[in-house]
């Protein structure tokens, strides 16, 4: 028996929508299943494909069925469609195959076969009991995916194109534009990576009421136990805060990330004035007169929506979503070498191109395997071999990274993640053909994309490679770093025999360098801070400070600035133009823990 707890499902029954008279239909969002079983909720690509979805991430072993109960208002014969996709179309059996069970009986054909997200017709079923049990049956363990299941008494497939589908969803859910719940805070921080957490703590310590919105169950972003990248960089002015959040220097991909996870989650949750909205993904932000009015977010499984209102916002989404929705200026890709004079002759085009292009540092998906005391098989993965080719490995490190000029790290993130999954499964399959790996078992493969670079929002100052190279001093240099400027490129550029998912790093040794506060707020959106990889910088400028202690410093710096913004009721820019000395003094002051009056 499964402990069915009826959460609020988006099981919407509408009459007359797209139907002839007396037609009934119902949309079930897969992520809202009562019991997802072994399937995981993947909300990463909502902005591209329309919704969080369920993913059968079994690393080659079929996962437990996802189950839910559905109540119908009317009995009858219903046609069923599933919104899914074959994530590796080609001349092989689709890797992510699954089936649907209704009341314990398999219905229709094998699913997960269509190229591109869209609806697959399952079959028709007769509903006589007004309630049915629905199950998703994973057949492969290799990342089958289900976005939604649609029942209709009329055999008319729902729309596929993104625009029409969004409208259709809104209509069928009878969802008004304004979320039913509205919350107000002094500061709304979107993105619970190290930068967002640091911003929240710094602001909360100064007495602000803070909402921290994060689309995962764990805080830390790339440093979380779900992605497992260790934090690099120095603490700068914010050691006390960052030690609450950072990681030890375990190898990337190590399960040791779990130890730091608990520390981080506990620390953030210890602040009473941080309202933590885990499993909430922002989906819109609205600016009027270049001032953000609100950010809307949706729970990644229940679909519950909340509108967040605040005088100031922090974009720590990594992809710069809040700025993007609000109309903030941003950049993407590599500037020409002449734009900011970021030449490094030794590496020429690899470092900074003569002509601008869309090349960026890639995303990683980390993974690992372990030796056991018994034999373990790993299935054939013909769909992975065109990517992995002859490459054979038993674990991945930071070099497992993918970027390609035809792919955008935001728009094509799902394809990038899937390419890495093919690389991982194929390379592990190759390694397993070696008898010395007979007892080796695939232990962990992330399904989250660990991004390095995406949108960079433009601030009053654009931090460049030269700022780092020359150690330029700024009156508002609130973030300090000594780490080399480190830019990656795909090794396939230098040799087509190399796997296309392996990168190389170019390191430029710098003196101590400083990031000015002016790189941490938007140039054209008056109440938007940014902290994290989406801060204001050039492609080459991002190379050094993109690591997580540095982005954490950015977060802490904007959290403190937000406190002064509240005190004087001004925007981020005015802290630089009018209150810089007080801001710098506050940064000094916060370095040491204060003993509360009550405990003195």
């Amino acid at each position, binding site marked *: 028996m499964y402990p069915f707890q009826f959460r609020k499902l988006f099981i919407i029954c509408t009459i007359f929508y797209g139907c002839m008279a007396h037609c009934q239909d119902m949309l079930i969002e897969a992520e809202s299943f009562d019991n997802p079983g072994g399937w995981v909720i993947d909300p990463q690509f909502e902005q591209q494909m329309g919704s969080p979805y369920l993913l059968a991430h079994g690393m080659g072993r079929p996962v437990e069925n996802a189950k839910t109960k559905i109540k119908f208002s009317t009995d009858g014969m219903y046609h069923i469609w599933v919104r899914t996709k074959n994530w590796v179309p*080609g001349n092989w059996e689709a890797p992510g195959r699954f089936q649907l069970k209704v009341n314990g009986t398999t219905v229709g054909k094998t699913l997960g076969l269509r190229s591109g997200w869209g609806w697959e017709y399952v079959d028709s079923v007769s509903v006589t009991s007004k309630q049915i049990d629905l199950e998703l049956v994973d057949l492969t363990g290799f990342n089958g995916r289900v976005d939604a299941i649609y029942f209709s008494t009329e055999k008319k497939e729902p729309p596929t194109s993104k625009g029409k589908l969004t409208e259709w969803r809104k209509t069928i859910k009878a969802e008004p534009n304004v979320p039913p719940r509205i919350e107000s805070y002094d500061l709304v921080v979107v993105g619970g990576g190290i930068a967002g957490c640091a911003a929240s703590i710094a602001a909360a310590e100064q007495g602000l009421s803070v909402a921290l919105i994060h689309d995962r169950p764990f805080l830390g972003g790339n440093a979380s136990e779900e992605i497992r990248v260790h934090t690099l960089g120095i603490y700068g002015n914010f050691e006390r805060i960052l030690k609450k959040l950072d990681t030890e220097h375990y190898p*990337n991909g190590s399960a*040791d990330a779990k130890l730091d996870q608990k520390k981080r989650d506990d620390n953030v949750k210890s602040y009473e004035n941080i309202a933590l909205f885990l499993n909430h993904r922002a989906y819109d932000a609205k600016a009027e007169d270049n001032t953000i009015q609100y950010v809307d977010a949706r729970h990644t499984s229940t679909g519950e929506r909340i509108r967040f209102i605040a005088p100031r916002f922090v974009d720590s989404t990594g992809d710069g979503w809040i700025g993007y929705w609000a109309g903030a200026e941003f950049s993407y890709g590599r500037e020409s070498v002449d734009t900011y004079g970021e030449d490094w002759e030794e590496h020429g*085009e690899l470092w900074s191109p003569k*002509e601008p292009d869309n090349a960026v540092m890639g995303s990683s998906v980390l993974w690992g395997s372990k030796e056991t005391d018994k034999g373990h098989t790993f299935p054939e993965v013909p769909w992975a071999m065109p990517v992995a080719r002859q490459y054979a490995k038993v674990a991945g490190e930071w070099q497992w990274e993918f970027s390609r000029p035809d792919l955008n790290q935001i728009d094509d993130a799902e394809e990038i993640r899937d390419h890495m999954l093919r690389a991982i499964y194929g390379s592990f399959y190759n390694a397993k053909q070696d008898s010395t790996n007979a007892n080796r078992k695939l232990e962990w493969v992330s399904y989250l994309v660990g991004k390095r670079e995406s949108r960079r929002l433009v601030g009053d100052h654009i931090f460049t490679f030269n700022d780092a190279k020359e150690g330029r001093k700024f009156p508002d240099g609130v973030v300090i770093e000594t780490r080399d400027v480190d830019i990656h490129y795909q090794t*396939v550029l230098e040799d087509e025999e190399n796997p296309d998912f392996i990168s190389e790093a170019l390191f430029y040794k710098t003196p101590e360098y400083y990031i000015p506060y002016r790189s941490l707020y938007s140039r054209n959106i008056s109440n938007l801070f940014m902290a994290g990889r989406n801060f204001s910088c050039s492609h080459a400028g991002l190379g050094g400070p993109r690591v997580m202690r540095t982005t954490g410093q950015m977060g802490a710096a904007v959290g403190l600035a937000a406190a002064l913004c509240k005190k004087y009721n001004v925007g981020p820019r005015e802290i630089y133009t009018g209150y810089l000395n007080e801001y710098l003094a506050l940064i000094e002051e916060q370095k040491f823990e204060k003993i509360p009056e009550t405990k003195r």
Partner: protein
Amino acid sequence: MKFLSAILFVFTLFLTNGESEFRESFSTETYNDILDKAPEYYLLEWKAGTKLSKRKAGLFIKIDSFDDQEVAVMVNGNQDPVLYASDVSTPVCADGECKLMHIRLYWTLLGEYAGFDTYPKLPLTKHDHDEFRKEDYEKLHKLLADDKSILKRRRIDELVEEPVMRNVNGVDALSGATVAEVKESVVSGALYSCYVAWHLTHGTIRDEIKTHTLSTLNANMLTDMLYSQNTDYQLFALEKMDSSQFIEHHSQTVRIFKTAVPLVRSIIAKEMPEKFRNRPELQRPFWEAFPEIDIGSRSLLLRHLESAPPYVGDIVSAQLGSMTKNQIAVFLEFLSPKKHTPELLKNLHSFADSENEAYSYLVKNYLEEHVP
């Protein structure tokens, strides 16, 4: 510590007159001033009949406590520089024990590693005095050819210590992956020799050699670089060529576009339309190479669709099967009914009707929308 060991070693050599003996023995081993066959380990092409002569270039490698080692330029019959070479002898010290390493190093005209020769009577040895085997020399060659080696950024003492995994907040400690990378790239038992050789080869001499080359650069040398298979030479030549030289060397540029590494192709893909702006017929071979080139270069070519000659629609539409989803999308977005030719429509229909093409639905949708 290592430095002190080296000084002590050299001092001992002097006391025993060891160095003069060594020098004598080494000089009989050094290569003569003519190079008429390819170095034993060599990255560049060696044309039959090549004969290079040694000339002074005024370049030296400085080695602590040792004489400067001269770097000579090797010139061809036209007196044009082709290579740089140096007969290097340098102390290698490990655990307080030093010995000399003898090797003849070669650099390209741009100061990159080109290869090495060894001296039959003075083979390289490992820490335990075992001589290098053939596979060890090959591994050293591969290591020296890697200008971004892990050895570049690490001190030697960092490379011999065991990695520290925890309790190192704030310290950029060596990870297990780094240690594995070092082991994979150096000759087993010869870390110090590898380290010294790599840093000699890739030290400040690189820039000095390049500067020397630039001071003597002429059209013949540039042409030779363009016709070389060496990536750095190709990039350098492409960078220096103006539009008229692109036209003069059109066939070779096309050849490079088809055969070079993606990095070189990407430069041509970005610049080709501008270089051949008024010569649409000269652009054709680049577009026709579409199925032969890498995905990235295809995307860069597709950026020029709007300004491309009219025949490009026909060429690209015949290659939909080799394009990624986004590339097909970019191409379809560029198309409009007025760009439809019978050939293009035939190609679109053929692709849309194919059952084996994963992205045929994109073209099908396009046809449904734009072709009644």
